[in-house]
């Protein structure tokens, strides 16, 4: 091949190589983009307080809410004091979870909620929840953690039982302030 074709080939090679490097970067750009889209559209905002309007308690219906919990790691046990409650849609419900740290190490954790069935999640409006912020728990300590929520009155008739589950994750690298408590 002639000399100019070689030169134009080199230029083309450079352009295409830059393009592939940029696309590698774009793969990483998808991460903040994904978070931004979730933020703007309100998808996946499970650890923020929900806004509730004027609620009317619907005494004609009852829904069983089960309280489940999982702990990841050996530092703690998370358990609801009541394993289930029978509630009316629109009624303000408060439950207490107990978090116990039997280990020798103080840790910081974050609870992530999950719902079963998944589509019921949109009807559980959390007003206050320990999952809205991180929890510090010292070695040997036990904490009582509240959750307050309302089941929206528009919940479909075929929903009779909703499971609310929390999983406790350790926040790696967070430092516990020993003096605070």
């Amino acid at each position, binding site marked *: *091949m002639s000399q100019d*074709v070689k030169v134009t080939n080199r230029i083309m090679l450079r352009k*295409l*190589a830059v393009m*592939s490097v940029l*696309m590698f970067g774009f*793969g990483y750009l998808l*991460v903040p983009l994904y978070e931004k889209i979730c933020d703007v559209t309100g998808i996946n905002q499970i650890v923020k307080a929900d806004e509730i309007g004027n609620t009317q308690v619907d005494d004609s219906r009852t829904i069983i809410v089960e309280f489940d919990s999982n702990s990841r790691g050996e530092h703690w046990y998370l358990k609801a004091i009541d394993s289930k409650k029978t509630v009316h849609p629109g009624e303000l419900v408060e439950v207490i979870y107990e978090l116990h740290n039997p280990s020798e190490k103080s840790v910081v954790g974050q609870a*992530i909620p999950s719902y079963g069935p998944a589509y019921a999640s949109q009807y559980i409006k959390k007003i206050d929840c320990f999952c809205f912020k991180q929890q510090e728990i010292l070695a040997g300590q036990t904490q009582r953690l509240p959750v307050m929520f309302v089941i929206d009155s528009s919940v479909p008739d075929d929903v009779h039982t909703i499971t609310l589950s929390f999983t406790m994750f350790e926040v790696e690298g967070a430092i516990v302030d020993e003096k605070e408590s």
Partner: protein
Amino acid sequence: MEAAHAHDDGHDHVPSGLMRYVTTTNHKDIGSMYLWFSFAMFLVGGVMALTIRAELFQPGLQLVRPEFFNTMTTLHGLIMVFGAIMPAFVGFANWQIPMMIGAPDMAFPRMNNWSFWLLPPAASLLVLSLFVPGGGPGAGWTLYAPLTVQQGMGMDLTIFAIHILGMSSIMGSINIVTTILNMRAPGMTLMKMPLFVWTWLITAYLLIAVMPVLAGAVTMTLTDRHFGTNFFNAAGGGDPVMFQHIFWFFGHPEVYIIAIPAFGVVSQILPAFSRKPLFGYASMVYATASIAILSFLVWAHHMYTVGMPVEAQLYYMFATMLIAVPTGVKVFNWVATMWKGSMTFETPMLFAIGFLFLFTLGGFTGLVLAVVPVDVQLHDTYYVVAHFHYVMVAGALYAAFGGVYFWLPKWIGKMYDERLGKIHFWLSIIFFNIAFFPQHFLGLAGMPRRIPDYSLQFADFNMVSTIGAFGFGMAQIFFLYILLKAIRSGEPAPAKPWDGADTLEWTHLPSPAPYHSFEDPPQIR
């Protein structure tokens, strides 16, 4: 590079022995190596497929442990996609693109050699993963988090293998784009290029755009596993669903990376055996380009069930259905090419027509799966397995078989045995349908994919499917015999064995094509 070329110039001296293949920069040698490599991987992946089907022959666990079964489904997918089908079409590109556009070789012959020689180490890593503690990857070929964040070192080997395969594909694509854009013979305008070359130009751009994204996704998985990042690790605030988004941003264009070169091969074969020019050449080019662009905008139809807003589901549903329009244009043009043609049915034509029927069927089941309420029912069932095997095996693989039979006379200068070729076609198409057609019914009845056991009501169709799969596998051993027979003792092939073939490699070059072709570019009218 210059020195080696100066040495080779002017006479058809071919270096001998193994070193010829290790050091070669000749596009024909590299093309052959790609094709043989992909055939070897096709057999390896095929053995894995038959392991899966053997286990599913009867309900209950008979042959393999469930973990190993998962490894088989994962590696079968990865090896067939990245080791068999993609390298096969890169092999076609290497052989055919320089000859079809009147170029002496690929633009970067040395890089071409490197692109190929990255493949065997990558394939070895994938196979090696089976023998490390913890076993091979068992997360499915889609490598979904959180499983990929948790599994043993077999997963690390898989991630490295994908990095290397990605590098190979990107270098190959850069080479192909540069060759097509800069090295065409005088007078070969873009809109005079054979459609196979067009489809590869578009595919190469797709590869350059999405392979790096896959590399990014598996790099994130790797850093999640070992370097304390939390992209997908839910325990650290990461989001496994995000992996699915990034993966399918790569993954959907990837299915067209596999399909579009197959479209190109079929667009060469059908006119040749219909003895008519391709119907609607320009619309074929535009339809292919539209498919490529649309493929970037529909990725989330693979994940309707992860919980997305109904508005998003509607968008992805309609955007996905839109792809049926350019695909329909292509199918229409292929059929119109055959309309009133003087058709003959040699083996390449049979495979092209087989492609046309079965790929279209697979396209229709794809449309069914695009519909959200239907997909929610069929997601992760055997219906999906049947769908993508119709487009990947009866689509891409049949086009590759057709292409091999079509160009083999040019490559080796000898004819294959026509009678045996036809037997190969009929065995393949009958056993393929025995293997995969019942899987539609299994999926509709609710049999989940990637599970080594199943309820008793699925037993009969699974037994039929396994019989078909083994028959299909045997037919491919027969294909190897046909190839070896042609290479050893085939009848000498004329320069243009197919009446209707009109591209440069048939009209300007003898059979077999000389080691160096088009040193002086041909003049295109």
